[in-house]
């Protein structure tokens, strides 16, 4: 569980990136943090594993105050996958890459072996175990980065812009993978501005703007509120756009799922026929 209480944070240069943020993420929740670039999304999640410590206010992860703990200690519970896999890959083989964190956390060699096998199978990388990560494609490197974090099985997973540069199929695989992790009870926090991806996942959405949280609720509610989204410089998901254009026809206003949309439209069109 992550508890953020009235956190303010200023960068050394003097820019105040968080201006009083309070947020609770319960175990097993799936949260998307959205907002414009510079809204403070990444700054906020960097507090979850202690990469940043609040200037004032408190962040507690599973009851531990982050300002009293080290990143290494916090990271065992909070896995953080960065946007660009090339910012972390450095080993000669995929195996070594995955073993890196496990060694840092002091696991025994036999355990490390088991964990690597588990992680490469989970992400479909087993044929690349002895390959250099630098020889892999962009999508595969992203999966190696994810595997190297999942290997120590953290309870909380933070994903920073996981869909950037990914094609449709890769996004779909990622979505299914996140759903799978969710059924295992993992807490997932995702920073993103990919509205379509969020609309497909329908998680809890936290909307940020200028260092503050401006809205917090279920994806269906937040992503169909065009006024709110406009203030956060986010566009409506396509399905919601369709219903916005059809506002005079009396459809419900919280539709983001394509199947739900199809059923509603079908019903209306059928009714109209008779």
């Amino acid at each position, binding site marked *: 569980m992550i508890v953020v209480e009235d956190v303010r944070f200023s960068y050394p240069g003097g820019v105040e990136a968080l201006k009083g943020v309070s947020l609770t993420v319960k175990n097993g929740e799936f949260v998307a943090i959205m907002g414009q670039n510079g809204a403070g999304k990444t700054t906020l999640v960097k507090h979850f594993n202690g990469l940043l410590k609040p200037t004032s206010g408190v962040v507690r992860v599973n009851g531990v105050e982050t300002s009293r703990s080290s990143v290494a200690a916090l990271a065992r519970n909070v896995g953080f996958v960065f946007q660009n896999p090339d910012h972390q890959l450095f080993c000669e083989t995929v195996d070594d890459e995955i073993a890196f964190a496990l060694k840092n956390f002091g696991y025994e060699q036999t355990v490390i072996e088991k964990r690597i096998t588990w992680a490469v199978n989970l992400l479909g990388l087993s044929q690349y175990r002895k390959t250099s990560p630098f020889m892999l494609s962009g999508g595969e490197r992203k999966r190696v980065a994810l595997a190297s974090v999942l290997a120590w099985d953290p309870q909380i997973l933070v994903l920073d812009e996981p869909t*950037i540069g990914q*094609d449709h199929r890769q*996004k779909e695989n990622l979505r299914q993978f996140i759903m799978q992790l969710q059924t295992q009870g993992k807490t997932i926090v995702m920073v993103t501005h990919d509205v379509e991806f969020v609309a497909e996942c329908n998680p809890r959405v936290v909307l940020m703007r200028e260092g503050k949280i401006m809205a917090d609720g279920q994806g269906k509610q937040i992503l169909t509120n065009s006024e709110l989204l406009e203030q956060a410089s*986010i*566009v409506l998901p*396509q399905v919601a756009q*369709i219903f916005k*254009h059809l506002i005079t026809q009396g459809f419900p206003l919280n539709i983001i799922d394509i199947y739900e949309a*199809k059923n509603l439209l079908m019903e209306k*069109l059928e009714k109209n026929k008779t």
Partner: protein
Amino acid sequence: MPIIETKNLSYTYPSASRPSIQDISIKVEKGEFVLITGPSGCGKTTLCRTFNGLIPHFYQGELKGEITVAGKNAAKQPTMEMAKHVGMVFQNPENQLFALSVEKDVAFGLENLGFDRKEMRERVNWALKLTGIYDLRERSPHEMSGGQQQRVAIAAVLAMQPEIIVLDEPTSFLDPLSAEKIFEVIYDLNQKLGLTVVLVEHRLDLTAKYANHIIIMDEGKICFDGKPREVLSKQETRLIGVGIPKATLLYEMLKKEGAKLGNTTPLCSKELADMVQEALK
């Protein structure tokens, strides 16, 4: 005469064991807005690099087949010659700006071509105004957002007044709103100047409505080549994992269940909404 024409074009990178593009034959007419899409690694970036001669000149490797761009043999002409005809905008805005101020960056190509100062100044201002960044001309690139940086990159190729502008996933690092603004700038250039646009993009939901020609690639080959409404309504496009617009998808789903809707495949939300309105009248 098409402005870009390739015949049986194949290319293999120097250290690669198999070709990245194979047997590509396409025609792009002057003034078209072409969208090239397909899953990652399908060869779309490679294809674009042949348009201004980066392939084979910069990347070496083995290029087979014919390619004519703006009446020139792009495989023979050096890139610096092709650069006058083909402007290229890359994915990462950060790595294509060299100068310490916006206007200096926009002038970079013209300086290389040896333009005199007066004409250079005129062209720079013209390009800055067209892309809506004239007020930012004295800024340094690291004081700008990704969207603004990408507009600088567009202005910089525009200043060289090419006939074709090729953009390789120009918005993949941007948020949807900035992305939309970039696409509008590009569309505007296409409409106002009659500039031929080749746009490589995953996000069809944002771009399909602008295009009048779409090329879908997979595993180094062309799968579909034609008008967006025709290509995107094909069932097979879904199979190769192209993220077709939700409105198009929804339309297909409704049609399948026997809904009475018009017969032009919609490419964006507004078009589908209008069709539904029409049907409900």
